[in-house]
């Protein structure tokens, strides 16, 4: 009975196995990035980036028609440009990251809309770019697995400077030049994960599985390594459970996964061991020292 409900769908259907593989790869790559995004107060960057990639995709479309590879590549370039430029501006001027990013993504979006209307078509380009987790073909699976690997490798390299950069940026500036490159490498990782995530799985899943698990992790750990572990685990678990929900009901897969994740989030907000609401209301007896 449990087997039928929980395991059988994956044994029986290949698309379910692929979807599970896809969602696990996405969790491995996206969730750690999400934790850093949250800690740097950049959680809305995902949505901004979804719009920022438009001119890149538009140029790709202009040059090669509805060629997914060209459009994704164009989107990557546009995303990099926006992320890097806004990062540079934030570091060298008074403007903070959120305003800098907002400015650049809006410029990018306006450019994109202009390019598209000059061409004279009203195809919803962004819609074309966004994929579906139930449609994991070999190429897409490879891309997100590659993503996850690169992300983990680069994160391992920039981990220390990234952490110090978040906690005490002035200190890092006085002892090392690694701050700026680490930050820019991080932004590049964000763009890669987002663009490839959009392409493979759609905006909802790509952004959702980045940000929500980070929020969940916040309530269960006081240590960044612990947070990353919990974020990855909750993303993967949401993927597994969400796919099952979508399998047994009529809920589409992307929303199902995100809804499960959101459910975990609500549970964490209420019962989390770190500043969960119930803990705050009923703290229990205080300790001796």
């Amino acid at each position, binding site marked *: 009975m449990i087997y039928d409900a929980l395991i059988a769908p994956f044994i029986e259907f290949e698309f379910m196995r692929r979807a599970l593989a896809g969602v696990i790869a996405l969790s491995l790559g996206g969730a750690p990035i999400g934790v850093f995004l949250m800690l740097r107060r950049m959680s809305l960057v995902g949505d901004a980036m979804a719009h920022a990639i438009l001119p890149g995709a538009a140029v790709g479309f202009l040059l090669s028609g509805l060629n997914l590879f060209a459009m994704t590549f164009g989107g990557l370039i546009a995303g990099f440009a926006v992320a890097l430029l806004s990062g540079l501006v934030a570091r060298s001027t008074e403007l903070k990251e959120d305003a800098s990013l907002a400015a650049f993504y809006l410029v990018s979006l306006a450019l994109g809309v202009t390019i598209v209307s000059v061409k004279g078509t009203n195809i919803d380009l962004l819609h074309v770019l966004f994929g579906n987790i139930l449609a994991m073909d070999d190429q897409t699976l490879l891309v997100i697995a590659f993503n996850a690997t690169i992300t983990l490798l680069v994160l391992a390299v920039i981990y220390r400077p990234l*952490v110090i950069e978040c906690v005490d940026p002035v200190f890092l500036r006085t002892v090392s030049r690694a701050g700026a490159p680490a930050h820019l490498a991080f932004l590049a990782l964000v763009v890669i994960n987002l663009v490839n995530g959009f392409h493979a799985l759609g905006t909802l899943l790509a952004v959702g599985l980045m940000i929500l698990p980070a929020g969940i992790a916040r309530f269960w750990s*006081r240590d960044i390594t612990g947070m990353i572990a919990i974020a990855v685990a909750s993303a993967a678990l949401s993927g597994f459970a969400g796919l099952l929900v979508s399998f047994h009901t009529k809920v589409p897969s992307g929303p199902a996964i995100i809804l499960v994740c959101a459910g975990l989030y609500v549970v964490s907000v209420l019962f989390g061991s770190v500043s969960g609401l119930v803990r705050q209301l009923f703290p229990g007896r205080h300790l001796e020292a």
Partner: protein
Amino acid sequence: MSAQLTFRDVTLGYDRHPAVHHLSGEVAAGALVAVVGPNGAGKSTLFRGIVGILKPLAGVIGLGSLNPRDIAYLPQTADIDRSFPISVYDFVGAGLWRRKGIFGGLGKDEQHRIREALAAVGLSGFENRPIGTLSGGQMQRMLFARVLLQDARVIVLDEPFNAIDAKTSADLIALVQRWHTEKRTVLAALHDMELVRANFPETLLLARSPVAWGATPDVLTAENLLAARHMCEAFDDAAVPCAEHAPSQAA
């Protein structure tokens, strides 16, 4: 003794307004210098220039053969994100950066040194606490522990004893004394004149322009202090370019 830091007609400031105006002089190696002056006198600005965060508008700050990255700096208002989930141990461990770089593992030796540093500032047992749970005094001790670990030849402290209790001050001053006996060069910006008179042999009285610089008793005279107090704190929006401008060079 040789000069560790030299200032040649240094002007530092923001948006062309000088916060430190035409400072010249030397800090000898192994000196223990207090930098005092009213609010807005340019003490923090001067330190930022020394450490390399701020480029001079004019003049040269010479560090000799010292790499600015090997100066330990304790800033005034820490831009530290206290909500970040990092433990005291890991935060302090960053002090080993110059030695270990991005990848260097923290071996037994390093672990021992971190614990030692924490003990030296009286924070033994705090290793696993998240930094957000520390009080002001404990934060300051933690920052001192990190400076300890940096093991730097030149140490620059910006108002390190602001808003901490007497016991902590006393403990930390003892550390500063220790650095002095280890022949490290220490500069500290301070407000507490008693502390300065009791512990610092050399003082620079700054009120944007240097008012006096030398042995502490000679500098902290009533008339010098009065002169310093007359310094205008605000930038003058209608100011004209300074006549004594010399081309700047970065530290």
